[in-house]
């Protein structure tokens, strides 16, 4: 019998969802000074802003962070200490959150030393799109409430 040791399979065997939750909580607490806890995935996210970052190498897939526009602006304010002067800063801030969550997550995984690379972030503004990842594993999904609004973090991994 063969043993499936792909990243997607490992993600479920080793409970990577808990690691992703911890990575998210740390980024929010350290960079935005906000303690967040996982919320039910059923919380509906109005995905007006989506940040995405690609992973390549020993982990192959995409991590996305999405939220509504007011929440994206509040996240940017939190990072910048209260002042946001442009929509570009909102996109930039959400991209950096996505980047830090992805980096923090992979740094917590054993055996990934230097073998997983991250792309630069991409931001989609506007919610009229359909997300289709070619990664074929079961996604890991985490939702947290930031100022009562849901922020959804999703990791799609290639098996």
């Amino acid at each position, binding site marked *: 019998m063969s043993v499936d040791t792909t990243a997607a399979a490992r993600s479920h065997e080793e409970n990577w969802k808990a690691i992703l939750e911890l990575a998210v909580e740390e*980024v929010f607490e*350290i960079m935005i000074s906000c303690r967040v806890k996982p919320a039910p995935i059923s919380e509906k996210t109005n995905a007006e802003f989506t940040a995405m970052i690609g992973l390549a190498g020993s982990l192959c897939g995409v991590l996305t962070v999405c939220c509504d526009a007011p929440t994206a602006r509040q996240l940017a304010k939190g990072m*910048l200490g209260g002042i946001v002067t442009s929509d570009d800063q909102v996109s*930039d801030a959400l991209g950096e959150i996505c980047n830090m969550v992805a980096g*923090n997550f992979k*740094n917590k995984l054993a055996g990934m030393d230097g073998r997983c690379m991250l792309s630069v972030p991409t931001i989609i503004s506007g919610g009229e799109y359909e997300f289709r990842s070619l990664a074929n594993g079961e996604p890991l999904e985490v939702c947290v409430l930031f100022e009562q609004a849901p922020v959804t973090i999703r990791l799609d991994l290639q098996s």
Partner: protein
Amino acid sequence: MDKICAMIVDDSSVMRKIVERSLRQAGIDLEKVVEAGNGAEALGALRENQVDLILCDINMPVMDGLEFVRQMNAVENAKGVPVVMITTEGSESHVVEALSAGARGYIRKPFTPDQVKEHVVPLLGKKA
């Protein structure tokens, strides 16, 4: 403490602001901050500015942080200037690669002002 001139290299303008704020929160008296969006911009800015400290991301378009560190000593103004990498790339191999390239410190994102202070102040010598 003397005032210092710092260069912050990151493709995210938000992150450049956060790094600057962290330096100030760490008690570092900044006279001037020079910003650059990638390694190539940073090399150009170094030819025009004398700085005391460089904080640099790794993953950037055009020229990444490791290549910047390898090339910066060719710029007269940059010789001996300490570089601290601030990056999401936290693996041991990345740390070794950065230090081998010439970086003097390594901070993983997300980071606190205390971590910035811990890594940066010892590099400033008498200026701190």
